[in-house]
Every structure is written in structure tokens, then in C-alpha cells.
């Protein structure tokens, strides 16, 4: 039986599971609180909750924010960096650029490895890959000894120019593995064999920093899934909008960062296209953060790498997602100057918002929404997590209202306005700041908190429409149902076109292909199902950025190389308006890349059948506070599950469902489409 495709996404606050029945198109889902520090219980809870027989699950695709959170919150392993003598500060230096050109006020977060644990070994490889200083055993021995004495849990090994000659890095790894087998260790050649020491170091250090956490997590997960009765394949979702095997995830834990947002972007693109909105801004607001992704013409935008923080670039191919610290659990506070602020600190899953009653005393967005009647304390998370309005009100009152001399409602409205303004600023950066007119886009609100805030943000951004998918709390996980296996490999070439021998390039591709095939075979992918895509990165020799070109399969010929060079010259001419004759310069082959694709079962959404107008779905009314309507007003409450295609209603209204709540402010108009999406026209809302 291979009936169900399951995707689980662990967020900082909640874990979402979505299960698609491939025979009926039925979707089952579960949303449960995330369960740090191990997070596994939440996954099993969610599986139990949807009640599918383990044996009928054909594949489980899993994304998590564990790695990203460990980096942002600096809770990863005690990590050391072993590097070339004389080059201790590559990590701290970064590229020396500021986050803002003029603003000198930023205080940067500390690097993942403090300088005291950056150890150096005498060795040196030059730009040509020659070992000009042999690896010195004595300094290596000393470094290893210090790692032991200091109880280091993870080590990144990065030597200068190692991408040209990995021998010293590999020997160092061996020495560490031999002396300290329990320590998670990785080297830059195995993680990102690419020119530019800072970016390579950052990626390798991030990888080591979360290695032990991800490794431990995957081990637990596998055990627990086996106990649950699951025998089929588990895939881990990565930032490139694909999945990888557990082994690959252990080797490249840094690639699991941003898997949720990547899934969200894939989901937003898919759902938006089905609903007739190929241009959407994904607005995925969960418990701790808000992810923004721009999808134009149905395609998420990609970039060659991303930054977890300004000084933590991770150079893996990825879907372009911007994240800001604004979620349901984001804490509101008063700064020294007496101004109301929001975030970026979050109450997380534990203790969570004050209303959770788990000991949180700081007011959060969730608390503010609850105080204003916008969330229903009894049905939050389908009633699994009853909220305490009094605790929420106490937090808002004591922390914000009283110090500022505001009423409770004014304080709660203020918290939301400040938080919304932060998200609007971030959304401007990815839309108008990039010259895109927001009026051409729809705001796709998902994540548990997205639909609560989206209408106000859209109005402020002049986005006319908010699209709330049928299962907003699960859109990210749903996107994850749709991703297939994608492994990316690369090798530095750094050869001028005239110096590159076809045989050399062929050897590189063949090695990468063998490696890729072997890896996919191990994962049970049959030879006939594997797709391999060769590409090369080319640039004019003195340039610093490259263009990527497909490279033909089969044996590499001089004609193939010449064709790639010609293609480069042509595209450079086309895109940038000039090309330089080869008599003056040369074209450099920077990297050889190989993408290995394998199939993984995916799900398709089917239109929902249903009937009955909005009235049938109205479950009642309650008093909700809307400042723009003058305060508390009688507000219709709808049950999302009862809303079918064609239903129409106007704000003020609240739409409740197990995984989220949609707030429809006064002046907004809603229509339900054939996939059960709420199409909210916000143009009639007053500006606040």
C-alpha cells in the first residue's frame, strides 16, 4: 500500500503535519505544539492525531526549523574552528561590510565560534593547490589536545585554498576522528569546495555548529518512527526546494536550514497558481517569525546562497525567502525611551504567550489578539490548547497598558500596529524596494498567525487582495508534499578556458556522477529514475561573479568546452550588453556542478465540492474590538469548514478553523473560491 504522502514541518512554536490520500485527494492534518528540546514527541503526536496506518504511508517528508533556530538563538553545539596558522579571524572579519550603509548603530551578534576556540595549525596551500607549508603534526596534535581539554562537541576544519587541494583538511579530519571519535567534525572541502575563504568558512562552521543537534535529532526520529511502525523512506527537506536522504542531511545539516520557508514558497506558488494568482507574496507567519517570499509568474525566486544573519552566509542554492522576527509569540516591550516595540524576541513554544498558562508573563501578538476578541480562547488549535484570556490581559495590562497610561484595548491595538508595521517594512523590501508594484500581487497569508494579521498588512502595502488557503496553518507542509529529491554537488575548476583539458572536466563530472548515483542508489532510487544535470559556472577571468550554463552529458569534448564558452560570450553580450574578445582575456571555468534529481511521491490538491452560502457556516457572533470601527462591535464568526465555493460575506468577521483564524476587518469583503481559499478584498478597509 502506498496511499498516503505525509509531510511534517517543525516550526519553533508549532509542528504541522499534512497527509494526502492519493486515492481520494482527502487531506488530513494536525497541528501540535512543538516540543523542544527534542521535538520528536510533537512529530509522533501529530502522526497519531491524523491516524494513518504506518504501513500505508509511502513517504514521509520532513522539514524543520531546528537548525535555523539553534543558530539564531546560539544554542548549537560547543564548536571550534581549526584553520590555517595566521588566519584566525577570517570568520570574525567576514566581508567587512555593514548591514546598513549609513546607519552605524547596529550591534552585531557574536560569531558562532568565539575567537578563543579558533585554533590554528601550521600548513599552507597556495592558490595553485601546492602545499607550500606541509601540515605540521605538532600543531595539529596540540590543537586536537585543546579540543579534548575544552570539551568541544563539533569542529569545522577550514584551510586556505583547500578547494584546490583537500589533503590537509582531510588529514586533519582523520586525526580528529581518531582522537575524538565522538566529536562531530566536517571540513570545508566536503561542504562547499568553492573559492572565497569567508563564505566557505561560514558555511562549514554553521554546518558543524548544528551537526550534533541535527544528527541526534535524526537518530531519535528514525528510532521513534520505527517504533511507530513506519518502514518506508523518510526524506529531509532542504533550502533548495528539494528533499535529501537522512545520510545527506547528517552530512549537510546546514542545508536543512530554511526548509520550512522553502516549502512555504513552493506551497504558495502552487496554491496561488491554482487559484489564479501567479503573482503572490507569501506571508508565512508562525509562532516566532514571518517568512516572505516573492513568487512571480508562479515561480519562487532562487538565489545562490543566503544569510542566516548578516555575517552568517550559507552558500547552498536556495529559494529566496526573507525572514523577520514577527510571529504570534513575538514579545511586545517598552524600550528605554518609552516607545512601544515588538520583537524580535519571541516567547517561543515554551513558555509561549502568557495566555498559554505555561509561565509566560510577557505580552505577545497572540495575547493582544486574544484580548481584542480576535482569537477564540476555546477553539485555538482546534481546542487542543485552551487559552487563558485573563493571563493575556494581565500581561498586556501590566507590561504595556499601565506603563504607557493606555486602556487595555488601546495597548493591545498598539501592539498589533507596531508588529504589523514591522512586517510591512519587510514586505516593502521585497516588493516596492525591488521595483515591484504591490498592486500587481496578492498577499498569500499562511502559517497559524498569517491570516490574523494579513488584511491590515495588505491594506498598508496597497496590496488589493489577501488569499487565505484552505489550510493556512499547513501551507508550508503542503508545499513540502510537492518536493522531490534534489542533491547538488559541486567542484571547483578555476581553469581558464584555454587551460582546461576535456579529460580533466570529464573526470570531475564522472566522479560527481558516480558519487551522486551511488548516493541515490543507496536511497533506493532505481537507475532509470535518476536524472543528472551537469552545469558549469563561467565568468570572464577578472570578474567575481559567474553565470551558470548547462553542460552536455556524455564524454567531454573540446567542442563541448568551446560551445560553453561561446554560450557565455553570447549571454554576456545579451544580458550585459558587451563581450570581450578572447584575445584580450579568458573565460574562466569556476565550478562544475551536478544536480541529481530523483522522484519522490507528490500530492495534488483537488477542487472542493460543497454548497451553502456563508450564512450556513456562521457559527455565531461575538464582540471583537476594532479601533477603526470605534471599539467593541458585534462580529460574525464563521466556521471555515462550512464555507464552500461562492460563499460571500463582509467584515467585520472572524473565520475559525483548527489551524488558524482569519480576521476580516471592517470594510473587507470575502469570497470563497473553488479550492476553498478565502479571497479577501481589502480595498474597502479604512487606513488606520
Amino acid at each position: 500500500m502506498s496511499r498516503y504522502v505525509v509531510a511534517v514541518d517543525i516550526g519553533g512554536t508549532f509542528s504541522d503535519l499534512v497527509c494526502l490520500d492519493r486515492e481520494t485527494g482527502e487531506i488530513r492534518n494536525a497541528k501540535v505544539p512543538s516540543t523542544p528540546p527534542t521535538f520528536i514527541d510533537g512529530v509522533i503526536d501529530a502522526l497519531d492525531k491524523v491516524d494513518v496506518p504506518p504501513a500505508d504511508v509511502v513517504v514521509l517528508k520532513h522539514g524543520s526549523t531546528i537548525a535555523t533556530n539553534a543558530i539564531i538563538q546560539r544554542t548549537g553545539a560547543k564548536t571550534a574552528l581549526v584553520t590555517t596558522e595566521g588566519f584566525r579571524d577570517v570568520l570574525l572579519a567576514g566581508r567587512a561590510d555593514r548591514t546598513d550603509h549609513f546607519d552605524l548603530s547596529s550591534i552585531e551578534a557574536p560569531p558562532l565560534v568565539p575567537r578563543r576556540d579558533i585554533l590554528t595549525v601550521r600548513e599552507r596551500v597556495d592558490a595553485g593547490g601546492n602545499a607550500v607549508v606541509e601540515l605540521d603534526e605538532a600543531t595539529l596534535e596540540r590543537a586536537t589536545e585543546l579540543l579534548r581539554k575544552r570539551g568541544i562537541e563539533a569542529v569545522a576544519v577550514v584551510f586556505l585554498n583547500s578547494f584546490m587541494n583537500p589533503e590537509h583538511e582531510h588529514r586533519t579530519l582523520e586525526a580528529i576522528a581518531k582522537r575524538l571519535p565522538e566529536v562531530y567534525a566536517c571540513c570545508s572541502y566536503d561542504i562547499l569546495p568553492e573559492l572565497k575563504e569567508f563564505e566557505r568558512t561560514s558555511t562549514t562552521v554553521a554546518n558543524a555548529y548544528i551537526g550534533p543537534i541535527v544528527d541526534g535529532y535524526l537518530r531519535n526520529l528514525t528510532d521513534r518512527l520505527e517504533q511507530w511502525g513506519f518502514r518506508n523512506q523518510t526524506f529531509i527537506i532542504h533550502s533548495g526546494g528539494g528533499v535529501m536522504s537522512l545520510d545527506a542531511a547528517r552530512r549537510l545539516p546546514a542545508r536543512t536550514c530554511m526548509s520550512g520557508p522553502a516549502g512555504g514558497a513552493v506551497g504558495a506558488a502552487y496554491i496561488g497558481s491554482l487559484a489564479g494568482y501567479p503573482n503572490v507574496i507569501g506571508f508565512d507567519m508562525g509562532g516566532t517569525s514571518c517568512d516572505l517570499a516573492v513568487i512571480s509568474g508562479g515561480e519562487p525566486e532562487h538565489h545562490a546562497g543566503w544569510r542566516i544573519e548578516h555575517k552568517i552566509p550559507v552558500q547552498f542554492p536556495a529559494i529566496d525567502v526573507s525572514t523577520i522576527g514577527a510571529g504570534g509569540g513575538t514579545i511586545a516591550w517598552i524600550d528605554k525611551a518609552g516607545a512601544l516595540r515588538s520583537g524580535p524576541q519571541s516567547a517561543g513554544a515554551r513558555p509561549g504567550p502568557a495566555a498559554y498558562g505555561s509561565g509566560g508573563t510577557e505580552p505577545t501578538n497572540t495575547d493582544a489578539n486574544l484580548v481584542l476578541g480576535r482569537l477564540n480562547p476555546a477553539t485555538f488549535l482546534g481546542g487542543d490548547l485552551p487559552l487563558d484570556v485573563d493571563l493575556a490581559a494581565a500581561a498586556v495590562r501590566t507590561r504595556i497598558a499601565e506603563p504607557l497610561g493606555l486602556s487595555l484595548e488601546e495597548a493591545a491595538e498598539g501592539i498589533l500596529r507596531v508588529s504589523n508595521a514591522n512586517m510591512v517594512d519587510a514586505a516593502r523590501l521585497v516588493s516596492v524596494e525591488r521595483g515591484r508594484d504591490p498592486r500587481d500581487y496578492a498577499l498569500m497569508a499562511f502559517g497559524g498567525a498569517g491570516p490574523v494579521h494579513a488584511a491590515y498588512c495588505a491594506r498598508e502595502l496597497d496590496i488589493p487582495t489577501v488569499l487565505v488557503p484552505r489550510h493556512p496553518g499547513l501551507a508550508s507542509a503542503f508545499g513540502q508534499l510537492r518536493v522531490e529529491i534534489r542533491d547538488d554537488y559541486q567542484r571547483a575548476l578555476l581553469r581558464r578556458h584555454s587551460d582546461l583539458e576535456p579529460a580533466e572536466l570529464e573526470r570531475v563530472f564522472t566522479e560527481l556522477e558516480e558519487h551522486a548515483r551511488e548516493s541515490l542508489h543507496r536511497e533506493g532510487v532505481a537507475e532509470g529514475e535518476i536524472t543528472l544535470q551537469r552545469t558549469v559556472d563561467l565568468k570572464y577571468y577578472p570578474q567575481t561573479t559567474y553565470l551558470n550554463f548547462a553542460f552536455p552529458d556524455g564524454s567531454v569534448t573540446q567542442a563541448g568546452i568551446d560551445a560553453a564558452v561561446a554560450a557565455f560570450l553570447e549571454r554576456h553580450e545579451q544580458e550585459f550588453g558587451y563581450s570581450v574578445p578572447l584575445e584580450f582575456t579568458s573565460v574562466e571555468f569556476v565550478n562544475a556542478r551536478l544536480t541529481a534529481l530523483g522522484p519522490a511521491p507528490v500530492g495534488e490538491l483537488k477542487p472542493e465540492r460543497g454548497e451553502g452560502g456563508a450564512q450556513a457556516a456562521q457559527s455565531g457572533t461575538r464582540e471583537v474590538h476594532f479601533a477603526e470601527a470605534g471599539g467593541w462591535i458585534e462580529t460574525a464568526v464563521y466556521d471555515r469548514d462550512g464555507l464552500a465555493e461562492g460563499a460571500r460575506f463582509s467584515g467585520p468577521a472572524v473565520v475559525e478553523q483548527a489551524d488558524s483564524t482569519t480576521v476580516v476587518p471592517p470594510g473587507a469583503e470575502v469570497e470563497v473560491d473553488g479550492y476553498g481559499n478565502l479571497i479577501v478584498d481589502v480595498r474597502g478597509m479604512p487606513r488606520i
Partner: protein
Amino acid sequence: MATTRALETLDPITFTVLRNGFRAMCSQGSALVERVAWGPVITQGRDYSVGLLTGEGRLVGHGTVDITPHMGTFEFSVKAIVEDFGDEMEPGDVFIVNDPYRGGTHNQDVRLVRPIFLDGEIFAYAAACGHWSDMGGPIPGTFNPAATEAWAEGIVIPPTRLYHRDKPVKSTFEFIRMNVRVPHERMGDAAAQYQATKLLERRLNEYVQRYGKETVQQAFEAVMDYSERLFRQEVAELPDGVYVFNDFCDHDIGREDHPRVKFTCRLTIDGDRAVVDWTESDDAPIGPAGLTLPALSSATFDGTLHCFPHLVPLNHGIIRSLEIKTRPGSATHVLHPTPVAGYCASGYEKCDTAMMGAWGQVFAAAGRPEMVFGGTVNLQNCCIGGKQPATGQRYVSYTWSEGGQGARSYGDGPSFAMFLYGAGAQNQPIEVHERWYPFLYEKFEVAVDSSGDGRYRGGYGSHRRWRMRGDAVNSIHGDREEVTPPGVAGGTNGGPNRLILNRDTPEERSLGMFATNVALKDGDVIDFVSNGGGGYGNALEREPELVLEEVIDGFMTVEKARAMYGVVVEVVDPDVHDYRVDADATEKLREELAGRELPVGYGPGERHPDGLRTGELLAAHEHDH
């Protein structure tokens, strides 16, 4: 008053879209230059800029990561071109100019300007500027610290047609090709800048088609009005008064006794008016220590916008709100043929720092210490020219170094920061440097103990060292070996910039910051240390735990912790980071040091007198409130 109406009549959505659209098109143009250009100064140093101007040559905006010394010069460049070509301009023309006195900064900053036509009239201008790594002259890289006349630097190109009907003007290209080193690289730079002007033309036309010519023109005005209104409002809230900050170039090496060169910024706040008077600065130097009027204009706006970062990008609304007074023939307004190639590390950086220092005093008087900043590392233009030992091919390298940023009232200055005016600039990866040039690096680490000190310290400078392969010649035009980044409110000035040949060997020789054509031989080692940032407040008030952490991390020595901060650190077992603060000894030592008066002056470890004045203004405000 027609302009004020523009802001009010334009609907707010369109205003926001166009305002951000102008900014976005400039930034996209800049990104294109960075991506496509040839020279590493542009592609990695991000020493480029792209600006959009109205048909009358008023600045609408520029790219958000552009290097700032260009930003005040756009209007001058366009003006020079209009003066020379006026009615002769045609659609498809692109002009080139690098004349520092009329249109720019120094010879290496080469501007391409395209008039954008609409309905047969010039509707706007697109300008793209880039630092070309070599513009000829006697020294590879064109920085010539020994120059006493403009002719000893590089070629000067007056406004000249470079493209006609979007086709290259061969004679102009040939002229450049014959006068610069590594000409094919320059052709790549020119092509990139040309494409950026084309991009702006295309993008602007898209907006015109969508919103109409009139609306776009209204938006030009509205963008300027908006900035002017905000700036004037904020200035009006600041206390009236006269605020003075001085800074100095280490030397005018054109004069025999190598005297310091003074740059005085006198800032008067009077209601919503801000007047910046540079006339008390020294007379023009003989050597390249001064700056031209366009460059001074950039420095004035740069130092201002660091204190009003929310008003970025610069546009004509701000330009017309800030009155600048200069004295032609002075160091802040040099005239032809005073040399200027090294203007940026010398006069420009001093004016930028003095401007920020003067604003710092205004904010101190307003009781807003968060806008008071210690001084930041200065650029050093270290150029090496030679032949690749393996191929015999000629190369020119241009190295700059990051260093310490100034301390703030609430935190230490970051280390490994770019100089103030090049925040978008990046350092050069060692691996890239080693691939391009015959260098073998031996070190890239923090310069230990190099911070300016205080309750919050400035960032640490950096320490680079590399070994030459093959013979070459080295020139450097930097500054701030003697007069270092100023400390404020009692904090000390940061550590020095230094360039030392064969350090710790019998042949050790300090090259200073103004060396010309020093012969380097195969195997020579260059040791390059950069400024630490200026400190903030009294070092004896720094929390001992913070000092301890810096000692454990090896940023600061035990000796400096004791001498400067009065913190006694016991080293128990470095292998496991066991270092401790001896609390009793620390308390005692701090009591002993409490009455000390650190020297007042402009050098490392001293307290800048005008920075002390900032502290007095802060204290006076606190006292009054």
C-alpha cells in the same frame, strides 16, 4: 511653491512606488556595474555609484550601497557636461568625464553620463561612476603621494563624447587605451557603466509609460520636497548654536617640513537652517592632501547622512537644505593644478570625520548620545605594480584594509569594519588576491591592542601580511598613522595605520602612509596594519568582565588591560580559558588611576580635544535636565 504642491497633489501610493522605484533602478544599475565591471576595485571594493538626475541636473537618488564620495558630485558632473555640450546633446549620447576640479573627485573616478530624452527634450540624466584601477601617470594605480602638480598623477578627461547614437566613439576609446595600464580591464569597466546608464533609461521609460511624464516629473519634485521637509523639521528640533570639530591630515608631503593639514568644520544650527562653514581650514596643500569642491560636497553630505541615516539616499532636497561655505584655494576647495588622486584617504576622510564630529556635538547638546560616534578606520590605498613571475603579464593590485569602527555610547565599535564612506565596500578575499597577484599571505588577523579605548572601545584594526613573489614597486597613499580616528567624550583615539617592509628582520623599514615607488624584491614581506576605532567615555568605567572577555579572546593583552583599564587579569590555565579578574587588585588599581589625565591630542592613546568638547556638551545637557 509649485514644488511643494507636488508632494501634496501626488497620491501617496504612487509617490511611494515611484520614490522606491527611483531608488530601486539606481540600485539595480549599481548591481549591474558591480556584476559586470572588470576591475576589482569596482567588483569587490564596490567603488562605484549610479545616480538619477532631473533634466535640470538635480539629483533624484542613487544606489543604496554606492560609495559615498561620489554622491555629492553627480550634479557637478552633469553641470560640466551641459556647459560643454549644451544643445549638442542627442539621444544615444553618453559622455565621459573624470576632471576632478569641475566634475568629480580624483582621476580614477570615471563618470559616464547619459542624457535621457523624451519628446525631443532632455527629461533626465543617468550617471554611472566607477573607480578605474589605473588612469595612467607615473605610478601604477595613479595614486602619487609625491605629486605636487596634477600632471604628475594621471590623465584628466574633460567632458567628452564616449558613445554617439549608442555606438562607441573610437577615438575616445583609443585615447584612453593608449594612456592607461591594463586597458582591456578599463574597457570592461566602461562597458558596465554604459549598460547601467542604459538600464536607467529603460526603467525610467517604463515608469513614464505607466504613470505619464507629468506624474514622474511630479514625483521627482515630491521626492526632494519630502526629504527637505523631513531634514528641516529634524534640524529645527536640535539646539541652535555653533559647533566646531577639527581634524588633520598627518602631512602635506609637498612641503619640506611635512606639516599637518587642518580641516575645520564649523556647523551653525539656526532654526531649521544648517550652515557648514569650511573656510577656517588650512590653505591648499602642495601635495595631494586636499579635496575639490565636488568631493567636499560629498564629504559634507556623507558626514551628515551618517547622523540622519533614514534620509538616505541623498537627493537635491537635502542638497539645497544644507548651506556649504568654502574658500577657493583652501584645503577643502583646491584648484587646478593642486594634486588630488589621494583625496579620499586624506582630505575627504578628514572632512567626513569632522562633519560627523560636529553633528555629534549637536546631538550631544540635544542630549542624544546615541548619535555620537567615535572615529572610524581610514582607507589606505596600497598599490603594487609588477609582472607576474609565471607569465610576465603586467599587473596592478590595489589593496585596502578594513579596521575598527568608532565606539558608540551604548556599545563597542565593530572590528573589521569598512571605512566610513565605503560601507557597501567589501574586503578582498585572500584566496582571490592570491589567484590574481603573485602574493602569498602569511597573516590576516586582528591587530591586537589597536582599539581606541573607553567605557566602550572602538573596533580593532586588522593586520595583514604577505610575501611578494617576483619584483615589483609599491606606493601607498593612506593617512592616519599619526592623527588617528578620534575618541569622544573622554575615549581615546584609535591605533595607527602602518605599512612596514620586512618587519622583525634586520631590513625592517616603515614605509609610512605616503610612500612612492618603493622597489620590492622577490621574497619581501609587507606588513599592513589598520586603524582601531576611537573610544567612547572613560576607560576606567568599563566593566571588568568585558575586559576579561577580550583578554581571553586574545584581542587585548593582559598588560593593556591593566594599564589602560585598570583591570588585573590573572592567567590560570589558558588551555581551558581559565582567566580571572582579581577583583581586589582591580579595585585598588582603579582607585590609583582614578585621577589620571590621559594626554589630550590627536594621536593614538590620546584624547581628541573636540571629542572632549562633545563630552562636555553631553554633561552640560545632563546637568540641565
